[in-house]
């Protein structure tokens, strides 16, 4: 038998050609862009330097937060805009996004960046007033109390994303990290009820590559994301974990988790160790809800108007009540693509 060299080269070129498109890196099977190791090192440095000292939000009542996944923003950011509007209308404490926020072209990220700036402006307008000196204070608080005064640079728009696989193709990490900076971080929400504090913990993981990578595994095992539960002498009431790649498979028609077996078991054990209340995932563009060892796993459908053109329940809102009980609901999105 003779297998012609030209035949092999031709077949390889056909294979590469067929697997090439905007969403798939043609040599993605073999090599990576900015690898998870470098992303996590960058994210952790940023988190340690800029986020760790300012990582607690304080609320004095029950609160809600809104989660979306796989928006794949291209030229029409209507669904992302709708997510921000829904959160603003419902006074959600924060937004979380589960990755694949935009397809990786510079113009899409320019659109996304503008959209987030506008949403930030609307959020600030709703929640803060401006003092004569240009600083802000929360509406309803004493403007003369220096503790309430916030400089414009210190205003936080509570939008917390994780990176997805489509965010890192074609060196998309450069664009993603330019806006969002970190894909590996955690923070607390302090809830002051009747003079006492309850604490909820939010953890964000970089699972875009289908693996945590050695650096992230080491940091998790070192306890970098465990929070300061013991140091501060309190126990977390709830822990919420956010990542891109799905843990469970919605059905045989959808893609399974791409975590290899050992990593799947490592993660399931880690979520249990963190005593997670809910783990949120995306990636697979299909809804799935299940319980495993006391942890709720919610896999969100894609909120992208390309993937789901019709209105539907693509977001999830979690209610954390005063007494500590949790509930969640699907949130309907109405936006449909503008006709060209």
């Amino acid at each position: 038998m003779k297998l012609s060299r030209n035949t092999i080269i031709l077949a390889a070129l056909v294979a590469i050609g067929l697997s090439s498109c905007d969403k798939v890196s043609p040599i993605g099977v073999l090599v990576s862009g900015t690898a998870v190791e470098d992303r996590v090192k960058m994210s952790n440095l940023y988190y340690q330097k800029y986020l760790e000292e300012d990582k607690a939000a304080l609320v004095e009542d029950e609160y809600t937060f809104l989660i979306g996944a796989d928006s794949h923003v291209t030229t029409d950011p209507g669904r992302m805009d709708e997510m921000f509007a829904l959160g603003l209308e419902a006074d959600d404490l924060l937004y979380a996004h589960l990755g694949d926020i935009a397809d990786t072209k510079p113009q899409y990220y320019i659109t996304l960046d503008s959209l987030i700036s506008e949403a930030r402006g609307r959020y600030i307008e709703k929640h803060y007033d401006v003092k004569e000196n240009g600083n802000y204070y929360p509406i309803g608080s004493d403007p003369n109390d220096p503790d309430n005064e916030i400089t414009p640079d210190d205003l936080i728009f509570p939008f917390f994303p994780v990176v997805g696989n489509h965010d890192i193709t074609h060196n998309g990490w450069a664009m993603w990290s330019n806006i969002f900076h970190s894909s590996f971080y955690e923070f607390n929400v302090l809830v002051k009820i009747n003079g006492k504090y309850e604490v909820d913990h939010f953890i964000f993981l970089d699972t875009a590559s289908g693996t945590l990578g050695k650096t992230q595994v080491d940091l998790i095992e070192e306890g970098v994301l465990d929070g300061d539960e013991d140091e501060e002498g309190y126990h977390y009431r709830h822990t919420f974990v956010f990542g891109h790649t799905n843990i469970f498979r919605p059905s045989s028609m959808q893609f399974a988790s791409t975590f290899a077996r050992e990593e799947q078991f490592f993660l399931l054990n880690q979520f249990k160790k963190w005593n997670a209340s809910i783990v949120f995932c995306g990636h697979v563009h299909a809804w799935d809800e299940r319980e495993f060892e006391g942890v709720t796993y919610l896999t969100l459908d894609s909120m992208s108007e390309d993937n789901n053109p019709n209105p539907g329940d693509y977001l999830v809102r979690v209610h954390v009540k005063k007494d500590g009980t949790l509930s969640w609901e699907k949130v309907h999105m109405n936006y449909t693509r503008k006709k060209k």
Partner: protein
Amino acid sequence: MLRNKSCFLLALLIMMMPTIAVATSYNGDHSFDGTHRNEVSGYVVGGSNVITGTFVGFEASYVRHLSSHWRVGGDAQMQFCKQLYSIDATAGYCLPVKYGHLYLDGKVMYNRYNRWNFNETIINLSATWESAYVDFRLGESLIHYQSVGDGYTEPLTLTFGIGANIRHRTNPWNIGLFFRNYDDFYYENWNINWGIRWYAPLPHDMRLFGEFNIRPAGSMSQLATKYEGSVKLGIKYKW
């Protein structure tokens, strides 16, 4: 995403076609050779994994050819560091055809992932078409894993793999490439292993064999990142 993966597999099939057309009849690598009814083999495996770091392990296999068509066997492995212990039982039917052999195989496997306290049970049914230079496998796996408190059964999972050698399979030595979503003791979903396999003759009906196996994380558009790399080195004996 699915369309692109399908296209990629289709392209690989196209690549195989010229090979299939010129393949000659031969005695299949896993079929009864007419003389030796028993095969025993063992290998040492070592590598590095994102979760567990460096690991080493041992494997042992036995195959009994009951007839020219039927065979049964069993495999076991111990991987230290991972604390992975596995055992399986296999049965297969071999159907020689003009340009190769068609194997229909069933496997029942149990894995104990002791480090994370998980037990995994897998049932796999596969059809393998093996010619002188290439082999192609398609099948389905039913995977169930169980921790202390809970269990999960994956929906049916596709098994697929192709391999190609540079020499005719009856040659005493050979070297080739493989591309598949399974290994001896696991069946993945869309995670693909690929690497180099080889064998060489030893005296007294023995054969030296080995594999260099790259196990990336994720697949296709997930920009595969290294998950595990391993090397196997073993000896097979027939009598």
